């Protein structure tokens, strides 16, 4: 089993406050990996550390290492922009850029100085993969803000796909979305899992049970338990994991 991402003795600090207290986690190539846990358990920070978006936060500091295909992403010679294209992220709130639908999806590829035709093809392909093409194909130049919440989130997914990433991180992508949009997004994630390594922070346990292959349970900065879907949800080892899964605490 070759692992796409290996996290070794990873610690993270915002100034003096420690948010992740040493985690070892291996995420297999392709498939959907869920990071379960209540709020403030360090999941969002963990996700952002994988594509170094955490660098933006002033006073952020980390220890240990994160390997992508065996290469430590924090080495000096790593091109951060290149890393972020390989490891795309979708935020917990639909965040379209203040541009048209087309411009949003074309934003990434345009930075790579690709030709017009090539960009157009990429945009169309990504929108189709994100199951949004039919909704927007005749209003590509309308403002992205005019789309519904579910559509906007799928636009964000298409935007990431347009860069041909290897890993897709999703931080509670469906929180605040209606059930139909949630189902559509989960469906497209399931289709994508053959081609991409998907790491998702589900907004509830049922979502994790439905779509992920493996899951890990984190609580206030510690990794409690990790395992395949079939084991962790049917007979969890730790009491706190079972309490969380059965919904005894939030």
């Amino acid at each position, binding site marked *: 089993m070759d692992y796409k991402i290996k996290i070794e003795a990873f610690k993270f600090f915002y100034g003096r406050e420690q948010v992740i207290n040493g985690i070892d986690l291996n995420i297999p190539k392709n498939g959907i990996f869920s990071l379960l846990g209540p709020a403030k358990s360090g999941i969002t920070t963990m996700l952002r550390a994988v594509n170094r978006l955490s660098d933006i936060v002033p006073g952020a500091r980390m220890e240990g290492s994160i390997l992508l295909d065996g290469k430590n992403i924090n080495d000096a010679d790593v091109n951060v*922009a290149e890393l*972020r294209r390989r490891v795309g992220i979708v935020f917990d709130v639909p965040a379209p850029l*203040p541009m048209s639908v087309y411009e949003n999806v074309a934003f990434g590829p345009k*930075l790579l100085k690709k030709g017009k035709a090539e960009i157009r093809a990429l945009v169309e392909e990504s929108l189709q993969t994100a199951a949004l093409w039919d909704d927007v194909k005749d209003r590509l130049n309308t403002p992205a*803000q005019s789309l519904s919440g579910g559509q906007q989130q799928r636009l964000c997914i298409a935007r990431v796909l347009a860069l041909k990433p290897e890993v897709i991180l999703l931080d509670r992508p469906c929180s605040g979305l209606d059930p139909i949009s949630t189902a559509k997004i989960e469906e497209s994630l399931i289709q994508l899992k053959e081609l991409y390594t998907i790491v998702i922070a589900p907004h509830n346990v049922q979502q994790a049970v439905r779509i992920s292959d493996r899951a890990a349970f984190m609580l206030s900065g510690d990794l409690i338990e990790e395992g395949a879907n079939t084991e962790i949800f049917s007979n969890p080892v730790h009491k706190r994991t079972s309490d969380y899964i059965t919904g005894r605490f939030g």
Partner: protein
Amino acid sequence: MGLNAKNKKARSKERAAKILIWSAAVSVMAVLFFIVVYILVKGLPVVSIGFLTEIPSNMGRSGGISSTIVGTVLITLVAVAIAAPFGIGTAFYLAEYTRESIVTRIIRFCAESLAGIPSIVYGLFGFIFFVIYLGFGYSVLSGGLTLAFMILPTIIRTSEEAIKTVPNIYREVSMSLGASKWQTIYKVVFPSALRGIANGIVLSIGRSIAETAAVIYTAGSVLRMPSSMFSSSRTMAVHFFILASEGISMENAFGTAALLVILIFFINVVVNMLVNRFIAKGR
């Protein structure tokens, strides 16, 4: 006091308040309307093609004011061409590249205070620094540079506020798609802060055009058409001031004032239109 008495008192108080507020608003409108109408009524009869194309003659008693219009436009262009890049650049540096620290707070505070300095002091500074020390003499350049110094603090402040209103999520999204800090700024932050920055520029243009004290001692008060950056030129506001305060010609004074008000209103409308079209294209 019984319940309905209290209600009646409350209702009458509300009516009184409503009347007070409506009358305040109406009186402000009346005053504004009165000032603008008075200027236009006294000024417009004088405004003719000749008034716009000929240069003033006989101390401004006759002829047009074309040289002052050109002077005003040139000086304002020089001021904005210099103050805008430096002001917006500083605003981006303060908003994007530095963390909130004592230094940034001091810079912001000084910019704020300098924005409040009376323009006459800028005029004094401009006269001694640009006209004499740097040897630019009474010229469009000296006037433009002095005004640039005067509007710089305002542009820094308004631009920084505009940049700060851009939601942080846009920056994160842009970077998460592989954009560098610079690409994020000019492809995402600048376009969405443009409306605020443009308002700041329009405010500064309005203030430069309306300026007299800072310009009399730097751009001079020559009535000839400026031929180069170094020729002295009288702006419309200065021309109005001299004609009105020297009692040389009331009609031409009000003609100039009318054109000034129209010019300022015209700039507001045009810039807002440009910004709307730019943003609409971008959306």
